[in-house]
């Protein structure tokens, strides 16, 4: 009996002492609560927010410019896309204080349109709800061609500083500053940080050093429209055959 105890129960008892001293079982109940249908939002917080909310809503309604056409996105080229890409190139040159050869807009990142007439700040937030930054990358002509083939395969993205044709999902007749693309040359290219980081299947750009100043593309759009208005200009964006289909 004693032998049986030593053989079977003592090790078990010892094991349990060890278990109890060094390990303990913890029960956890969890629930990730959705914050929904809260009947009484906290009055203290509502009071704290009120002055901020009022002025945010007011600033969203602020009119910053005027467009003489309704601008919409379309492929391979559109008036809205050209307006946005031209803005990116110009504002990048101003902010980074250097020449930018080409600017691209990720077609999927354009989330709305610009109506004919007055443009409010809120409209720009709807157009560009993502906090994408403008970044610069120095690309070889070879990498640039790969990138252009990728966007040609997607039926064309808004571009500024370049013209091209799309044939069999490839970019051909590429002209940069009226000169054919040179695979051995380098080009200073503006993109959103999302694309420059290899997003949207743009693997060829990942790993290429980026110049980043934390400049939001949305801020660039707002500043650009404000500056046009200050010069007494309205927005008059058109298509000009930057990207066409070759037959």
């Amino acid at each position: 009996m004693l032998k049986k105890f030593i053989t079977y129960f003592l090790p078990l008892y010892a094991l349990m002492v060890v278990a109890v001293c060094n390990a303990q079982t913890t029960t956890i109940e969890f629930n990730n609560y959705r914050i929904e249908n809260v009947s009484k939002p906290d009055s203290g917080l509502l009071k704290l927010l009120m002055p901020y909310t009022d002025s945010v809503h007011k600033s969203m309604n602020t009119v910053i410019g005027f467009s003489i056409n309704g601008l919409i996105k379309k492929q391979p080229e559109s008036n809205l896309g050209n307006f946005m890409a031209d803005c990116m190139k110009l504002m990048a040159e101003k902010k980074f204080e250097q020449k930018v050869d080409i600017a691209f807009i990720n077609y999927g990142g354009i989330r709305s349109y610009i109506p004919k007439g007055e443009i409010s700040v809120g409209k720009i937030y709807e157009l560009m709800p993502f906090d994408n930054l403008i970044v610069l990358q120095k690309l070889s002509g070879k990498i640039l061609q790969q990138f252009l083939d990728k966007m040609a395969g997607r039926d064309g993205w808004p571009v500024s500083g370049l013209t091209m044709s799309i044939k069999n999902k490839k970019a051909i007749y590429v002209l940069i500053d009226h000169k054919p693309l040179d695979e051995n040359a380098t080009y200073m290219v503006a993109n959103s940080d999302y694309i420059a980081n290899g997003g949207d299947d743009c693997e060829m750009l990942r790993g290429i050093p980026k110049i980043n100043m934390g400049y939001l593309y949305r801020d660039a759009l707002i500043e650009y429209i404000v500056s046009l208005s200050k010069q007494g200009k309205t927005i008059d964006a058109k298509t000009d055959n930057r990207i066409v289909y070759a037959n």
Partner: protein
Amino acid sequence: MRIDRRKFIRQSSWAGAALFASSVLPNTVFAENAFDHITILHTNDTHSQLEPFPMDGSRYAGLGGVAERATVIQQIRAENTNVLLLDAGDIFQGTPYFNLYKGEPEIKAMSMMQYDAATMGNHDFDAGIENFATQIKHANFPIIICNYNFSNTAMDNKFIPYKIFQKGKLKIGVLGVGIELKGLVAENLYEKTVYQEPIECANKTAELLRKNNCDLIICLSHLGDKYSENKVSDEILAKECFDIDLIIGGHTHKFFDSPKVYRNQRGGDTVVNQVGWGGIELGRLDYSLARSEKKKVFKTQTVVIGKKTRE
């Protein structure tokens, strides 16, 4: 529930052993045969979403909002004595509030909700490190992070690497880790912040907390839950850590269906949870910790997780 069968059996046998032990062992081990309770509430990546999402037919329309979150928190606090409210970073950026006020209402709202601590995310640098240092003057809670060296920045002396909270009879240690900033944040924004290897920093800090007899050690993390490439994440931290019991994650905006459990370096369990973004959800974990008189420095925990039904 995403706990595999083997783990379940392991957990059940531990629980069984503990139960059996409690019945046969003298009372010294299971003194007062009681449990200590602590409720951990947490958010991550709230991204300046102060108002509920607008009612525009979009996916999260009507969800979230700080005044709404505050009400839920108050209800939980009214029903539970020991509550910790934590945030895993990316408080800033995402709505016009941030563009206009650079984070002031976000921090004020968190102070009013009585957050106990937060760590820093990459977007908290978006208006520059000096701005973050300025805005946290409105905070009545500490910024906790142990793997950023802020010595030559405006954040110097404005953060702590860890904090020990006394909640009832429990000592809760909280530390924080941040993501690598290079390539993610513009250098002119993070300035001379030096990123240090997070696993090493977290393990050192957690060891210190364990030696200080903390009953539960929580790591606030903005590393991201996991990646397809070999990049440090909460999953890797959970497997590589020794003393961390719970990782409150962020950055990857994942809505976890239930907390994930990993086997750590001591053979115990480390739990990871994350609640999406935008304050759409509030995470809640109710711990019942067995009370033992003899505190072991290197104690491991095995966890049994169950879904709490909402009151």
